[in-house]
């Protein structure tokens, strides 16, 4: 059992105030850096993809997890980043310029959407974003001159100094570096006034307003930030996919992103990472189940979506705080050992109230 004392206000500001946390994160980072030595090229590219999704998850988390604005259409920003980046690159713009431009474009579009959405609430907003994504997908398909239409387009290779950064360990490090930067930036925002304003809006718009938070502006900021980060993920994703088509950024993809942060654990920054890990290994789980099941069932078409759906439902039923919540419990168990009580996370009865009043 360890007891943590606070000796300075700085500890409440620091990201990792305790040595144990510092150690854990350091270890994880060291492992991530050493990964190219430890795993084969396929797994490495999957790890890179995982990081890209984790970035996208952080983006969505800012909006949905912290500001409480549910988005069903974040694949649109992923697509926006990916297409903007790929189109710019195919027009000869170098990576170093195309990427910031892509991020800027999705940030701006995010801000514009955020502006129109700043008055919407709850699932109105969720549906509005969903519809936005559907329309965006249509736009990608119809704007053939730019996007290659429904036939899609190839993503130019990412070369720097004559070296291929679009695959292998170099790409992996690019992804990793961006993930670290994004996580740091997100954590920084969350410990500052704007991040607190996000959370304030999530819990009570009314009193946030009375404390001087400009609701519309803050929501726009949240949207813009979220869209920017997701757009960045999109640009990196483009190099993983190497081929873009409108349906890559369908509603299904938006749902996957949302699923990722819910399963990972809403309102945490660990959530997107755990969630991304989860959706990356989900297909493996499903395949594993397929091997275990009797062939009469396992050879049925539709098994994947079935298992996918079941896992989601079971997850939310039995671990509603997500994987990050589970992690907290495990950590608590270790820290308070041997005094941990299983019932300390037992929940009281809960009741809901209308969310139509705000």
């Amino acid at each position, binding site marked *: 059992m360890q007891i943590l004392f606070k000796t300075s206000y700085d500890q409440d500001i620091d990201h990792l105030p305790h040595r144990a946390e510092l150690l854990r994160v350091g270890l994880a980072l060291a492992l991530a850096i050493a990964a190219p030595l430890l795993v*084969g*090229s*396929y*797994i490495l*590219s999957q790890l890179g993809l995982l990081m890209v999704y984790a970035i996208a998850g952080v983006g969505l988390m800012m909006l949905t997890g912290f500001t409480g604005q549910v988005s069903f259409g974040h694949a649109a920003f992923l697509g926006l980043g990916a297409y903007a980046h790929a189109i710019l690159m195919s027009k000869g713009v170098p990576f170093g310029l195309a990427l910031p431009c892509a991020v800027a474009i999705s940030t701006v579009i995010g801000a514009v959407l955020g502006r129109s959405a700043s008055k919407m609430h709850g699932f109105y907003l969720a549906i509005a974003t969903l519809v936005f994504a559907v329309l965006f997908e*249509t736009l990608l*398909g*119809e704007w053939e001159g730019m996007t290659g*239409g*429904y*036939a*899609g387009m*190839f993503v130019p290779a990412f070369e720097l100094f004559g070296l291929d950064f679009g695959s292998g360990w170099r790409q992996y490090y690019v992804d990793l570096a961006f993930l670290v930067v994004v996580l740091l930036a997100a954590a920084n925002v969350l410990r500052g006034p704007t991040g607190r304003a996000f959370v304030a809006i999530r819990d009570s718009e009314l009193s946030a307003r009375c404390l001087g938070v400009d609701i519309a502006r803050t929501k726009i900021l949240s949207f813009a930030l979220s869209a920017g980060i997701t757009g960045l993920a999109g640009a990196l994703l483009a190099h*993983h*996919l*190497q*081929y873009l*088509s409108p*349906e*890559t950024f*369908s509603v*299904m*993809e938006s749902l996957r992103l949302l699923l990722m942060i819910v399963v990972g654990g809403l309102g945490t920054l660990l959530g997107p990472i755990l969630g991304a890990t989860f959706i990356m290994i989900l*297909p493996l789980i499903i395949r594993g189940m397929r091997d275990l099941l009797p062939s009469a069932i396992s050879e049925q*078409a*539709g*098994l*994947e*979506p079935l298992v996918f759906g079941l896992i989601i439902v079971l997850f939310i039923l039995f671990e509603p705080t997500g994987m990050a919540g589970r992690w907290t419990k495990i950590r608590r168990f270790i820290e308070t050992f041997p005094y941990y009580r299983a019932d300390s996370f037992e929940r009281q009865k809960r009741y809901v109230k209308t969310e139509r009043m705000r």
Partner: protein
Amino acid sequence: ETRGVTDDTIKIGTVTDLSGPLASWGVAATNGQRMRYEEVNENGGINSRKIDFIVEDMQYQIPMAVQAAAKLMTSDEVFAFVANLGTPPNNAIMKRTLDAGFPYIFPLSAGLSMSEPAYPLKKPYLLNDRDTMRGAVRYFAETKGVKKICYQVMANDYGTEVESGIKMAAETLGLEITAFGRHKPTETEFTAAVLQLRNSGCEALFIGSVSRDATQIYTTVRGAGWDVPVISSLGSLVPPVAENAAMEGFYTAAPFHLIDFEGAKDSAPHVYEWYQDYKARFGANPSAQAVIGYTMADVTVKALEKAGKDLTVDSFIAAFDSIESYNDPFGGPEVSFKGATHYGAQYSVLSQVRDGKWVVVSQSLPF
């Protein structure tokens, strides 16, 4: 050392749809392929190598297709891809696969991009949608005297190719296109579209779609009391469409032929035997897609055999290109894999739903 080849196995990969909207294609074609490989393995393999057949389900979704291809390339390290399904998924994965030097055999799609541009490692099989549709339009103009046509196509690359074929044919034949429409793959409501097509005075309606929307368009057409021939491109040529009573009279033009297995009992006993064998293995009747899958695997096996014990990508491709007159086991037209176009089958067939079955109306549709 050749990638995907060991002393006793050859790994073959396929990226297909087992549970998405094209599952009725993917499942059957995969079964057909698997049957052929199992036969090979039961007979001791190819040059004493067994075939290790790895199937990846991509649910007709591009990101999953890209994932699946990456897995087959870098994790499983297959020797070649055979019969990857669907135009968009193929478009998404073909380039990187070819760049990485994998033979790309018989994508199960009739997209133009499957055959053009030509590339030594890329082996198309089906005649493309554009030319198939040109043939279909010509057929109706010449045998039914149709002068005014209209069309409704999916708003994706598949529909666009069908559309371009219709337009080309209309131009060369001097037909009038009275109206047209495009729809998203998810569209389910065609009332207004059909009304518009109908009011244009159209005499034959061509559609570029898969089975679901084809069914919806056709029933809307008939529900509106419009008695016009409706001709779809290959996507709808699956058994359930024929089994649907409301689809009576519906046409499909597709670059492959249909086999009447029950009818083959006496005329071609080995085909009937194959049919029984397939049913025993998979518990379902073989569809045209199963036949194609089997045929594609068969050609692949032939080329592998020809390449000999010393199997490399080069020897395989060389062997492939030397297959000159190939006759599939089902009595389809003879095809050659020699020459610049690398086309496999150069023909297409018009079929119609009659009494719950697909019936061939015309064995070839020259364009």
